[in-house]
């Protein structure tokens, strides 16, 4: 209202001072923030700093900081001229995420691709040599073969066994929670912990080196056989390693699928029963189609996990002599032990490219399901 009273000149001055105040405020805020970030938090870098204090400041900075940043940006947007205000707001809100994503994801990906074209020290350009190595070296070829095995076998077994358990547990009158907890339990163990446990299960001592303490050799000898060095039986030792991941992941598949099964409306199942469908037909034509989106998500998760498997293989002995190499294990090996940055980066890129189709398939499948609803 007041704008109509004021003469145009005054109006312009008003506008200008307001703008100046805003600019100064923003600049001050940016400098204050920069100062805070570089100076006041220096004590966090001190190794002897109080742990609790460090943790508290991290939480405070993380939670409150994010809130403050978004609030401040919202304010800044409010100062913008009306015409572009609402147009700019979404970009301002997405901005920090894009910046963080670029710094921590997009930049490393591009840099890895560049390094993969360079030599062991990441200095001289060598063209496609590192990729040639990935697809010709006999140990790398074994790694690619083994990883393909992991990607197919582990999700297949873990998801089908998990689905079976989930379906059967759903029928239990009593003890469903206990049964499910027992199967879910291995999920709480780290990969390395599980691998160490299974090392003991597969343990082997040749004659002269004392009794065999491994569970598997105990059973095997109980059946009247000679003890076997399980972990060096190529190519079966790969399966022995996959068992560990299946053991750990089945519980996860079961829990997720079980909750999906419980979400199926009972009317549908009852209707099927009344129509005289057998339990198998209900499972095949009602249960599975209803929970298909969940199965897809769980399977993708497992596929990606199997693609990235590293800890289990690394703990279970020298992968190269046992023929149990996998892609991620080769990457770590070439980077940290053989110190060849170029080859390690090339392996990383191959792994990265291999994950993309799985993600695309996952998203597509999910969209189809959404569209059907």
């Amino acid at each position, binding site marked *: 209202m007041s704008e109509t009273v004021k003469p145009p000149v005054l109006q312009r001055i008003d506008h200008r001072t307001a*703008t100046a105040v805003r*600019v100064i405020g*923003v*600049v001050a805020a*940016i*400098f204050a*923030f*920069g100062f805070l*970030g*570089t100076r006041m938090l220096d004590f966090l870098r001190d190794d002897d700093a109080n742990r609790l204090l460090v943790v508290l400041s991290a939480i405070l900075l993380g939670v409150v900081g994010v809130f403050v940043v978004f609030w401040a940006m919202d304010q*800044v947007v409010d100062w*913008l*001229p009306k015409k*572009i205000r609402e147009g700019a707001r979404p970009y301002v809100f997405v901005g920090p995420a894009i910046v963080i994503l670029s710094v921590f994801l997009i930049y490393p990906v591009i840099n890895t691709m560049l390094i993969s074209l360079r*030599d*062991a*020290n990441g200095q001289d350009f060598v063209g496609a040599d590192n990729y040639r190595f990935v697809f010709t070296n006999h140990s790398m070829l074994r790694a690619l073969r083994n990883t393909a095995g992991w990607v197919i076998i582990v999700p297949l077994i873990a998801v089908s066994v998990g689905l079976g358990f989930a379906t059967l547990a759903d029928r239990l009158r009593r003890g469903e929670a206990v049964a499910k907890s027992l199967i879910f339990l291995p999920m709480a163990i780290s990969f390395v912990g599980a691998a160490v446990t299974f090392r003991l299960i597969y343990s*082997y*001592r*040749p*004659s*002269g*080196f*004392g009794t065999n303490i491994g569970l598997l050799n105990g059973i095997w000898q109980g059946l009247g056989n000679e003890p076997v*060095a399980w*972990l*060096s039986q190529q190519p079966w030792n790969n399966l022995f390693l996959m068992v560990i991941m299946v053991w750990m992941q089945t519980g996860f598949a079961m829990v997720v699928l079980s909750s999906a099964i419980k979400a199926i409306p009972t009317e549908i199942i009852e209707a099927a029963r009344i129509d005289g469908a057998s339990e198998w037909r209900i499972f095949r034509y009602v249960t599975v189609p209803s929970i298909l989106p969940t199965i897809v998500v769980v399977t993708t998760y497992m596929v990606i996990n199997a693609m990235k498997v590293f800890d289990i293989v*690394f*703990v279970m*002995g*020298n*992968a*190269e*002599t046992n023929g149990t190499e996998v892609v991620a294990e080769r990457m770590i090996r070439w980077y*940290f*032990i*053989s*110190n*060849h940055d170029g080859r390690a980066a090339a392996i990383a890129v191959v792994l990265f490219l291999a994950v993309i189709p799985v993600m695309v398939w996952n998203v597509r499948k999910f969209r189809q399901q959404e569209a059907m609803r």
Partner: protein
Amino acid sequence: MMKRRILVSIASLALLAAACGSDEKEGAGTTPATAAPTTAAPQSTTAETTAPETSPPATSGGGENTGKVVLLSAGEPEETDAYQKIFDELINAKTDYNIEVVSAGDFEQQFQIQAEGGTLDVAAVPQPGAIPALAEKGQIVSLETMGFNIDDLNALLGESFVALGEYNGQHYGLPTNINLKSMVWYPKTAFDAAGYKVPTTWDELIALSDQIVADGSTPWCVGFESGGATGWPATDWMEDIMLRTAGASVYDQWVKHEIPFNDPAVKKAGEVFGQIMFTDGYVLGGAENTPDIAFGDAPGPMFENPPKCWLHRQASFINSFFPETAKAGVDYDWFPLPPIDQEGTLYAGELSVVGTNGNRPEVIDFLKRFIAQDVQCAMGGVQASSRISPNVEVGESCYANEILAKASGILTDALKTGTGRFDASDLMPAEVGSGSFWTEMVNYVKNGPDYLDTALKNIEDSWPTS
């Protein structure tokens, strides 16, 4: 127009602020490294060499005295705790800085990360093969830059050992630990009771092995399993034999790849190794099973009654894997692996390497104190330790453990006379020394004598071309 200008100015200010911020950070982080002028550092350190016992200058030299030096070690925590105590008593109590020994289970990774990130003070590196790459990238600091006199170090620590850290005429590694590899352990009481004699030649060693087989027992206990590093004990065998069949100069050529890996000289060593591994009844459990026997479990059967095996070739640290009740000199003892065509002593050890963050007066002072006779001698006094000093001034009397005293005598001789050689696999490029050499030796013992040519050719093919 105006609005856009405001937006642009805000954006550019934000960028500017961000740039300033990061500049400040980087500046703070790299000051000690970049402000380490090659002219200032030697001055301060020569001052120190003239008066090494006085407390070091706190502010001069290539950076500030931060009061703390972190030594990254590949040793087990029990071991590093013992050294921490010695450092506390002999260094920390006298100086205005503190040494902190950090034991890293994943040493190779940690060392690499810290060196590349510029946060490394000092690391005791067991694999000198890693040095050239880091030196080329400028991620470690040479001893010359820090004002050390290489001639003095050669005289004190053995020229062949100091030379392992050399790259482009500069030296990057200070030997701070050594251990003897050419040791054959035996169960002394039972050995003497059976009337066996310690062999002094290779033929006597083979004769003894045959005698043990004839007596209905098994001479050798061998185990190569070591997790991701499975195969390294087999490479030690090869190196020990290579040094004795081909001699030190051919050994050096082999390490530097001046002769191919499938050279007849290497094949000869492989055949002698095969003689031990593949002769019927020589190896407990059979050669093909040795890659599945943990190297630490391997000597176990030697301590049964009667012993299930009588000989075990392994480095000086292995007695920490012996039964706790076994007494050195009574239940077990050792003899040097006998010469074949010539004498030789195989050893391994650590070279202390200084990262870009470590070019500071207190780090230099620490290294000088670390290799000095008193600290090195005190380290020998730790009962649990298998640490032997590369300092030739450290006498046998320093060692609490009789086994180590004897080993140190042999090593000191080898360092003085130059007949000792460092573990070849730790000097070769990592692709070979921590890769194909391990793998192919395992394949060799698994597949038998006929595989030797394939094994050596595969290793030769894996040698990096650049």
